């Protein structure tokens, strides 16, 4: 039997000035896992997190932490560890004082406080800096102090609001790895907010993509990348080519769709002939044949190269079809070199395996 999730939200709503910033959000974070809330700016990620922490009171819905309803429990009794975007260290307390704060609030005996502070700082490899003031620390060090401060009280759950947003790329990646290792070691249930999709995919056990106050899709990183259920998710996580058209032929559980601009693709769909569909196609699924037209079946199209952008590991090829409709392909670079012959103006045949055609729900808007 599966235990109840450590964090549970049921139909949580929060409106500001009549606008629903969070519009009926329900999900659970299983014990010991990391779930990321991912979404564009203003979609309500921080608001969801602040409601779990108790800093914002929901208008409707229920929140439970470790099986206990907390919707009406004040912040300071919820025992959550929260990491703020700019760390929010106490500027008037030194590193040790910052980490000790939560313990003092819990009335821990002085001797135990000292020991736990040292242990917590050792955990984030900062035990030498206990006497420093926050403004004497680098961004990465501040982040670690904030983490130690949140973890030292042994919180029920850990909430991270864009924890790596203020760090430069190198440090961000190092801190991501470190935080993930620490989270695994402590086995602490974690909810992370981010608008960095790469961060969400690499760090999380599950990803919830939010949009306009709702959760659009919640799935594992691989599932959310490979099987996005909506055009929004397909476009937000990685990039996608979208083909919109009608079913023209049915054969068993497969169907042939012709897009409005004339590309024919085969899809796994139960839709009837004449029905409209949207198909998402990942750029990296597209193969390029320089030999020119080799066939006329579905899942292929004749194009010319519009632009070639070298990105080191990959090359982004922006293609144009006869009518000017764009199509983007991403190719892996062998030995770091661009595939010979990929030059603007060249005629290429683009094709892809039919299992890469992915039917997605269209935006209601």
């Amino acid at each position: 039997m599966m235990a109840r999730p450590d964090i549970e939200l049921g139909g949580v709503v929060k409106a500001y000035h009549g606008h629903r910033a969070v519009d009926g959000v329900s999900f659970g974070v299983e014990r010991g896992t990391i779930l990321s809330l991912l979404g564009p700016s203003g979609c309500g990620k921080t608001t969801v997190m602040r409601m779990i922490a108790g800093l914002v009171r929901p208008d409707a819905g229920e929140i439970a932490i470790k099986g206990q309803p907390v919707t009406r429990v004040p912040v300071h009794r919820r025992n959550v560890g929260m990491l703020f975007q700019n760390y929010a260290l106490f500027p008037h307390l030194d590193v040790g004082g910052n980490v000790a704060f939560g313990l003092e609030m819990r009335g821990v005996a002085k001797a135990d406080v000292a020991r736990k502070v040292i242990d917590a700082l050792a955990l984030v490899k900062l035990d030498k800096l206990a006497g420093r003031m926050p403004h004497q620390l680098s961004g990465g060090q501040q982040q670690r102090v904030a983490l130690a401060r949140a973890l030292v009280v042994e919180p029920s759950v850990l909430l991270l609001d864009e924890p790596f947003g203020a760090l430069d790329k190198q440090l961000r990646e190092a801190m991501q790895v470190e935080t993930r290792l620490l989270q695994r070691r402590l086995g602490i249930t974690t909810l992370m907010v981010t608008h960095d999709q790469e961060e969400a995919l690499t760090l999380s056990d599950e990803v919830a993509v939010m949009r306009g106050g709702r959760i659009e899709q919640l799935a594992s990183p691989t599932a959310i990348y490979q099987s996005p259920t909506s055009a929004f998710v397909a476009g937000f996580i990685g990039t996608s080519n979208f083909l919109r058209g009608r079913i023209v032929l049915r054969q068993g559980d497969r169907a042939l769709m012709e897009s409005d601009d004339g590309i024919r693709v085969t899809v796994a769909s139960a839709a009837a002939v004449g029905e409209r569909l949207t198909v998402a196609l990942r750029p990296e699924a597209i193969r390029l044949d320089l030999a020119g037209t080799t066939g006329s079946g579905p899942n292929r199209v004749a194009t010319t190269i519009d632009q070639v952008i070298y990105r080191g590991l990959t090359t982004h090829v922006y293609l144009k079809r006869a009518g000017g409709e764009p199509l983007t392909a991403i190719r892996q670079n062998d030995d770091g070199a661009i595939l010979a012959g990929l030059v603007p103006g060249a005629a290429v045949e683009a094709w892809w395996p039919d299992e890469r055609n992915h039917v997605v729900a269209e935006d209601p808007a």
Partner: protein
Amino acid sequence: MSITDRRTDLGSPWRRLAGALRGAGDGLAGWGLVAPVVLFFAVVFLVPVGLMVRWGFYRQLDTGALSDGFTFANYIRLFSVDLYRKATWTTLEISVLTTVVSALLAYPLALVMARGPALIGRILTVVVIAPMLINVVVRAYAWRVILANGDQGIVNWLLAQIGLGPVHLLYTEWAIVIGSVHVFLSTMVLPIAAALGRIDPAVEDAARTLGASSFAVFRRVTFPLSLPGLAVGSTLVFSLTASAFVAPALLGGNFVKMLGPLVQEQILSVFDWPFGAALATLLVVLVMGVNLASVGLIERRLQRKMKGAR
């Protein structure tokens, strides 16, 4: 390091000033920038103060002429005559009282201004600043009307209506304290409100998630972080009250003597400039001494607190 963090840093104003001066001295350009101010202060501040201190060591002869050389006669008189010793004590007492009362009134006001609804904040700002637009003499006379003794004062009239009083207010230390608090309240409120406004709300949120109740957040985070504002306000109010002369003269009359009116008397009525200068020098030394001592005290306390928190 972000700017917000630096602004909420509790480093003493003095250390920051020193840093700024050092920074300014980094090049000729720096000196060029501060030169006009330095010159201005040299002319309107250092020179007169220097002259004042020097005059304190002259002595007015009975003929009205000044003695040559250097004498401590003024200071001996100052410390041996009861009136002057008492005036010094009264000045300190009234200034400390005014500072404490202003701080107690100003802090909640500043909290509402910085944290309350924007509209109320703006209205309060106007209310707090409005008295500054009225001449201090006018205000002092207004307070005379309000606090007048016997059956003339508004306060006593009101008390009489409910069958109390009368109380003796005008020409007491409390009259001066009340008048001074009114005059200097904005000087106390504004720096505190500014310090409170600079506190990052996320820092208080962090304290709450760490288990601090509202009161604990205030005691351990909000209040300590607002201390720089409180220190600036207190320093200003103390200094201004101690050296004031209009409010003490009009509200204290001849019954409560402070150093400010005494200096004025010596110079403009008695024409004993050397003794007036000695009194003024004492006032300056007193104000500076108390300010330096309290800034030092606050700083030491804060540092001990930070260490102790570990």
